[in-house]
């Protein structure tokens, strides 16, 4: 008997894991009709699990040391952060969707761009949620293109903007006195300093953004691309200049352009060891925490090119099978509060741009915002604002990946 039990137990466990638990989806649809007070009540003493990219210590500390205790105190929510790459989270959700798993493990995901497009197209998200969130209604510029579109995909209330970042180049001011102001000047600089510049492989998020700047320049501005939508044929004709530029600088890049860093992390490492003199990144304030922990030299400063720098918004969303949707909504609403956003803006943890409209903030918070010193490596908000460029259709990301390989990497 005992043996039979030992034999059957794992089989039962396996089978029970396969069976989908019935969950009345009717009650969930109703959640969106509830009053906000009611939702807050429902969220009390529950657990919220957020799956998010965990590669940045500053961000992790912000979530664990600041957000989690506050949520516990103000809403009685136990917050748990699980580090995982976004595409793997989506893979997990897709598998659960295929297996008709109605009760998942993820309550909140951090998402944008291609990933959002995938999630939306595969019905992996719960919503629309944003119209229910008081802080979204109160503090966010709901008419701005940045909150309505995510890399050209209509948001449709399925995700709430969490933060804004802008692309900057980082350089070591002790080695470079005057950073280049245009792509032409950058080219001259690269030629004068062979081996001291490179960019990550465009399969990397940051490397791809670097190429998009060149793409905008080559086609004559982002407006044209936005107006045109995704049109490979149009771009193909216009983009010769971009490949020519990249191939012209190639022999002067790090390792003569025979190979490129796989990721921004690798480029950062080379920058911190002085192998290259510039790095870049999709957060205007990212150097601050890296200078503080000694990775980057203290003389690190940032610059943008006159042609502009791409900014993008990243969002929070709730998976279709989140086991605690009320808790997730309350948590997201808290993360969009002026209090949480100002703390995120401070260089203490993360130092990242707010998703809120500063003009909509209460007087007191506007004052606080003005007083926050983001650090020497961060450009002033006026400079950043003047150079802000929008994102274009996310299909260009893939287009660049593929064509860069043919047009640049494979050419010897």
């Amino acid at each position, binding site marked *: 008997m005992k043996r039979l039990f030992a034999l059957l137990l794992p089989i039962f466990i396996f089978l029970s894991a396969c069976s989908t638990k019935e969950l009345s989806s009717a009650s969930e649809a109703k959640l969106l009709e509830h009053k906000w007070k009611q939702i807050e009540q429902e969220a009390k003493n529950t657990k919220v699990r957020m799956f998010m990219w965990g590669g940045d210590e500053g961000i992790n500390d912000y979530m664990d040391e600041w957000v989690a205790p506050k949520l516990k105190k103000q809403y009685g929510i136990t917050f748990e952060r699980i580090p995982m790459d976004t595409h793997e989270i989506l893979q997990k959700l897709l598998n659960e969707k295929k297996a008709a798993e109605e009760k998942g493990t993820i309550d909140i995901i951090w998402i944008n761009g291609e990933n959002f497009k995938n999630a939306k197209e595969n019905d992996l998200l719960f919503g629309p949620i944003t119209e229910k969130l008081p802080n979204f209604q109160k503090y966010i510029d709901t008419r701005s293109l940045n909150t309505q579109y995510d890399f050209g995909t209509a948001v449709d209330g399925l995700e709430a903007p969490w933060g804004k970042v802008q692309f900057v180049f980082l350089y070591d001011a002790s080695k470079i006195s005057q950073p280049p102001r245009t792509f032409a000047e950058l080219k001259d600089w690269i030629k004068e300093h062979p081996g001291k510049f490179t960019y990550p492989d465009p399969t990397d998020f940051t490397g791809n953004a670097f190429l998009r700047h060149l793409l905008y320049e080559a086609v004559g501005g982002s407006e044209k691309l936005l107006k045109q939508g995704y049109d490979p044929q149009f771009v193909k004709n216009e983009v010769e200049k971009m490949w020519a530029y990249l191939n012209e600088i190639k022999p002067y890049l790090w390792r003569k352009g025979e*190979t490129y860093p796989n990721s921004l992390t690798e480029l950062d490492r080379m920058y911190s060891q002085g192998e290259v003199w510039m790095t870049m990144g999709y957060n205007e304030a990212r150097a601050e925490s890296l200078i503080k922990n000694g990775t980057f030299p203290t003389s690190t400063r940032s610059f943008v090119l006159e042609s502009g720098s791409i900014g993008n918004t990243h969002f929070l969303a709730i998976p279709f099978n989140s086991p605690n949707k009320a808790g997730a909504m309350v948590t997201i609403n808290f993360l969009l509060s002026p209090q949480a956003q100002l703390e995120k803006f401070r260089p203490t943890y993360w130092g990242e741009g707010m998703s809120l409209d500063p003009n909509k903030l209460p007087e007191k918070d506007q004052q606080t915002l003005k007083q926050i010193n983001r650090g020497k490596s961060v450009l002033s908000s006026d400079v950043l604002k003047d150079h802000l460029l929008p994102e274009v259709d996310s299909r260009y990301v893939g287009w660049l990946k593929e064509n860069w390989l043919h047009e640049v990497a494979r050419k010897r």
Partner: protein
Amino acid sequence: MKWLEKDSFLFLLPAFLLTIVLVGYGVMMAISESLHKNGRLTFQYYIDVFKNNNFIASLSYSLWIALVSTFFSMLIGLLITRWLYYYLKSDFLKIIYWIPMLFPHFVWGYMMVLLFSQSGWFSSLAYRIGIIHHPDEFLVIIKDSHGIGIMITYIWKETPFVILMLLPVYHQLNHQLSSVVKTLGGKDWDVFKTVEWPWIMPVLFETSIIVFAFILSAYEVPYLLGTTYPKMISLLVYEWFFEGDWSNRPKAFAAMLSVTMFIFSIMMAYTSLLIKKRYQMMKGNGK
């Protein structure tokens, strides 16, 4: 056979079932996804994959790296085993060859970066003592287009594995046969050829298939040490699999399954050719 006794087999069944079900299901899904396009059965993805220049470049690059690394791991492993067996009697020292096995591949890969990259330890050393005048002059073996860094890492990691597999065989050898060869006027080479080779050959081949299959489909070391183009096969497939719009996924499955089939057919060929021979050897005198 003892393990097939009724009781113990029963206890193995759950683990066995779980493995078969989970792995088997995954493989089945992969096969089915690679064969269906819009719900219709098709070989289109396989045709696409083999027409794709990136794939062909990756495949030949991976095969090249796997072959070279396997060959040198075997050769060096064999030489060290013989040396350990004949000249090193202390058991304690034999433990040293274990050291590279203690660390994961990823750690050795990163060690390679720290030691051999152009801003690495050896480069700085060479620069300090004045062998090179600029860090850029240091030999490029990290992220080089021939995959030398990858090969070094694998040879370094797999050689101990080869020794681990070969050493017991040497201990089982009938050494009276060596004496026979010697008395009949044979040289060391003759001893190796007539006494050792027939014994170690099957193990050597088995080991090389394991090592070859492992390197061919490896991910972490080429990720750290590989170049942008061509990429090793797993890197390319990973890229296809996780790419933006998921449209390349069936292609990723087709590519990986092709590699699996390739390794599988090598294994089948080996089994049918060599197991027979090995059996004869065990029975008789190797002829």
